[in-house]
């Protein structure tokens, strides 16, 4: 799986990483070699449908997606002059004009 100069520049943009023209040819060559090497995973048989393995405590792996109470000693409605429907009410911008 070879990558082109444009591929590397596009990925660098996604990664917020400046890549200078000088190092670009080496990066293209080395990334292509790395991706060629890891592409052998596609040729491996017998792993389709396998559930991903994640190490660590079960509590992390299977933590229920539950809404918890406010962790604050005082709720946000007490912290702001106006609080409505779960949001802080702020003045409209045109009121400052």
């Amino acid at each position, binding site marked *: 799986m070879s*990558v082109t100069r444009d*591929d*590397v520049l596009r*990925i*660098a943009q*996604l*990664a*917020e*990483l*400046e*890549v*200078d023209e000088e*190092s670009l040819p080496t*990066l293209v060559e*080395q*990334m292509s*070699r*790395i*991706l060629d*090497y*890891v*592409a*052998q*995973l*596609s040729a*491996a048989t*017998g*792993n*389709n*449908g*396998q*559930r*991903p*393995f*994640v*190490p*660590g*405590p079960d*509590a*992390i792996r299977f933590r229920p997606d539950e809404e918890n109470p406010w962790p604050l000693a005082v709720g946000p409605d007490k912290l702001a002059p106006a609080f409505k429907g779960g949001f802080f009410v702020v003045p409209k911008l045109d009121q400052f004009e």
Partner: protein
Amino acid sequence: MTGEGKSAADRLVKVKRLNALLTPVKELRKSLNEQASAARPTGVLYGMPVAVKDNICTLEFTTTCGSKILEGYRSPYEATAITKLKAAGALIAGKTNCDEFAMGSSTEHSAYGRSIHPLDKTRVPGGSSGGSAALVAAGAVPAALGSETGGSVRQPASFCGVVGIKPTYGRVSRYGLVAFGSSLDQIGALGRSVHDAARVLSVISGRDPKDATCEDRDPLRLPTVPESLQSFVIGLPREYFPSDLDPAVRRACDRAIRLMKEQGAAVREVSLPHTQYAVPTYYVIAPAEASSNLARFDGVRYGPRAEDVGDVRALYRKTRGEGFGPEVRRRILVGTYVLSSGYYDAYYRRAQQMRALIAQDFRNAFDRGVDLLFTPTTPTPAFKAGEKLNDPVAMYLSDVFTVTANLAGLPAISVPIGRVKGLPVGGQFIGQAFLEDEMLEAAYALERVVPATEEA
């Protein structure tokens, strides 16, 4: 200056030529003096100097991760492992050189210059915890902390002729360890002997409410040195002894296996059939996690910031482009690529599935009555500096025997088992999850009988 602090500082200064220590001498002496005065005399590690890899946060010294992007960075908090070491009376003996953000196998990818192998200056000490291994091997400290994502404690331990332990994932808190690959990272210990490394591991292990990935378990209890290996069944995975294995490494392993048999161990061949996919699996998962973890280093929150930039995105790009070295840039790009739309399934999902099969291989071997596995730690002894710098895949393959334990979250230890033309060779035990005590017993027994400094 107090006795312990002064002698620790003197020994570290003597091996300055190794470029293994990043902390300036003056700062080190001052801190060691203060720490020695404050250390608890009742602690189990009282007065023991422990050097610390530079990706573990300390209050006493800067934490740069061997990177320009964190030059001069001083963490406002310290790692739980450091707090526990200090509570046990240990002295934090400076920060050690490493591959940038722990990405590398030679400590050549440090922004602060490469570290030198203590026995041969033309060779590398391994990596990424190469500075820690070199200092222990040179006798500057009895023990050091390193970190593992794919073998970064065991591989340099093997190259330098010291002991390196990687605990089970979840055995040691990662709070304060700068994240690289969060599903793989663990803090490990290096020592002159199994006992030195195990003592440090025992102190830093155990529950920590600050790290949700740390298991709710008591600290590791150190086993006693066994009389023999009578009750042990040791598996030899055939995939770790390929026909092209360095003949001298094979000789050293054969000798260690013979000595274990003489100690009463039952030895049997086993198979871990997905081993051939371990390195490609690792080099998809680790860069993917790294690309996410390293997104935070943008010149706004940490370290130096690029100048003369037009807007905030240009600031991010220029700071990161200038601050990260070539290996880190390469891995961020590979990681971003394998996570990007259109490639996620082909690379990342596939690698996650393969990781499950690799972990299953180990479970199958242990289910068949094997207590531990024994393998070479590395395919060759320490290689020459520069030899693999321009060939990332060749460099990655030096981790071929170590990455599997990280992928499966298992404990493993490298013990010196002989020399090849004067260079150390390590043998590795891989244990069952949270059975470090069993693994340490076997390591104690092997260490006692193997002629670790003799040619194999």
